[in-house]
């Protein structure tokens, strides 16, 4: 290290770090009421098209009044609840709340110190962005869901991991021992902590790949940031040789077409984007991303995601121990072990990107809505947040209602 100039510091050592980190990164693991087998997923609800009278938000978000059928007092009460939890630093845990209805902003509020230009951390919502980039390459014919996952370390014919496909990785059913709660090396309390911030952080792909198969691919679900990193690596290697080239692809293929100009992907030292955990974006860009999925992968006159890709993303991954994970998106279906209830009492058609510390992009086909909630979870809990967001959604009538 050279040329080090000091500007500020905090003090004192800390122990038991990795265990804390692992528990914090797992999105509400173990909060589900357990069921032996998940019930059948209801038929997918049709995704609402963009009204020809509403401009796409590629340049700027159109705005509209909340409209008839919404009780302003009920809305105020739901919003106040979300902003009522004040965390460390005397800042509300909810830093941004954005409601999109029928393609238009009907509500937008930020905590003091934050605004429309503020960038927020995705945490695991990054996985859903990685899903989009995989879809774009499938649409272009450069990747196929049921081809062997192009992980260089798995390509020997006698390597059992050569049976793992891109579909398995997106469904988190690869069977590879790289789930967030796996032991990992060194034994510091969890694989994901080592992957993101420990010995794996300089080359997340190599670290996530260097694990054995412990279940036949496609048979067991396990939440795996490592799998998302591997998908990001497959995408990165398919499009460019280095981080600059990969960044250019992400911009031209996904971010620029939807007008997400305030979104930054982070890359590791090996030049791969951290597609399982580290993207920063404004609330309005997150809403653009949600709208892309609400509109079935269409944007203006362009199909960005293959036909059927959003349905694949919001269809429950086929594994007996999976209740409500699709393909890098969560579904409002009964959870299984190590999963959680999304919006209690909300429509089963809801699907969402979800990240540590209460990051949400909630897509509601029945209401033609996207809800973005960003911030921290210093003084609240997943259950409280989920319930408050369900109350917010209840304020709005379903489309046509």
């Amino acid at each position, binding site marked *: 290290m050279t*040329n080090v100039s*000091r500007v500020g510091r905090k003090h004192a050592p800390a122990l038991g*770090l990795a265990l*804390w980190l692992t528990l914090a990164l797992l999105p509400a693991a173990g909060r589900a009421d357990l069921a032996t087998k998940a019930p059948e997923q209801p038929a997918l609800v049709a995704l609402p098209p963009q009204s020809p009278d509403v401009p796409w938000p590629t340049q700027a978000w159109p705005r509209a009044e909340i409209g008839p059928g919404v009780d302003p007092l009920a809305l105020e009460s739901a919003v106040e609840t979300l902003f009522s939890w004040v965390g*460390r630093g005397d800042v509300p845990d909810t830093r941004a709340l954005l409601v999109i209805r029928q393609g238009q902003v009907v509500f937008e509020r930020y905590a003091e110190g934050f605004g429309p230009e503020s960038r*927020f951390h995705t945490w695991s919502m990054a996985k859903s962005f990685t899903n989009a980039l995989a879809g774009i390459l499938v649409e272009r014919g450069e990747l196929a869901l049921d081809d062997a996952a192009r992980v260089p370390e798995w390509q020997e014919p006698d390597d059992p991991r050569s049976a793992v496909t891109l579909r398995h990785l997106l469904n988190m059913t690869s069977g590879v021992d790289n789930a967030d709660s796996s032991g990992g090396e060194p034994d*510091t309390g969890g694989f994901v902590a080592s992957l*993101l911030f420990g010995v794996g952080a300089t080359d997340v792909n190599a670290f996530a790949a260097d694990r054995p198969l412990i279940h036949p691919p496609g048979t067991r679900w396990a939440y795996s940031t490592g799998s998302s990193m591997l998908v990001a690596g497959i995408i990165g290697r398919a499009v460019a040789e280095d981080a600059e080239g990969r960044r250019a692809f992400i911009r031209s293929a996904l971010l620029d077409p939807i007008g997400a100009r305030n979104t930054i992907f982070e890359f590791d030292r090996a030049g791969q984007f951290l597609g399982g955990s580290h993207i920063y974006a404004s609330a309005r860009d997150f809403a653009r991303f949600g709208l892309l999925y609400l509109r079935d992968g269409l944007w203006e006159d362009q199909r960005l995601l293959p036909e059927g890709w959003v349905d694949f993303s919001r269809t429950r991954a086929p594994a007996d121990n999976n209740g409500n994970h699709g393909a890098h998106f969560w579904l409002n279906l009964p959870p299984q072990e190590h999963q959680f209830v999304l919006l209690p009492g909300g429509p089963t058609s809801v699907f969402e990107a979800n990240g540590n510390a209460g990051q949400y992009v909630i897509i509601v086909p029945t209401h033609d809505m996207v809800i973005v909630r960003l911030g921290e979870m210093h003084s609240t809990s997943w259950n409280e947040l989920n319930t408050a967001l369900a109350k917010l959604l209840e304020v709005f009538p379903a489309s046509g209602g």
Partner: protein
Amino acid sequence: MKRKWMRIVQIVLIALVVLGVFAYQDLRAQASIGAGYVAHQVCSCVFVAERSYESCLPDLMPIMSQIRSEVVDIDGHSGIRGWVPFLSDRVAVHRPDLGCALD
């Protein structure tokens, strides 16, 4: 009798040393993750989210917020150093448009 006690003391001391080595290695690994977490998260908060260093610290998990950190300049690149004295020292460096990366 004295030789027997000496033998027991020797075994206990060896066991304590072995346990100490394992405990130290585990402590170092945990400190490395903690220092890496602080370095990366504060780096991204300051240079990607463009918030003040001071405003970023309360967002760290409470147990992590006690790890030392400072803004550094490394060969013209801004970054954040996170460290636990005698155990671990990590740096995350910011590169424009590519975010922060741990060394």
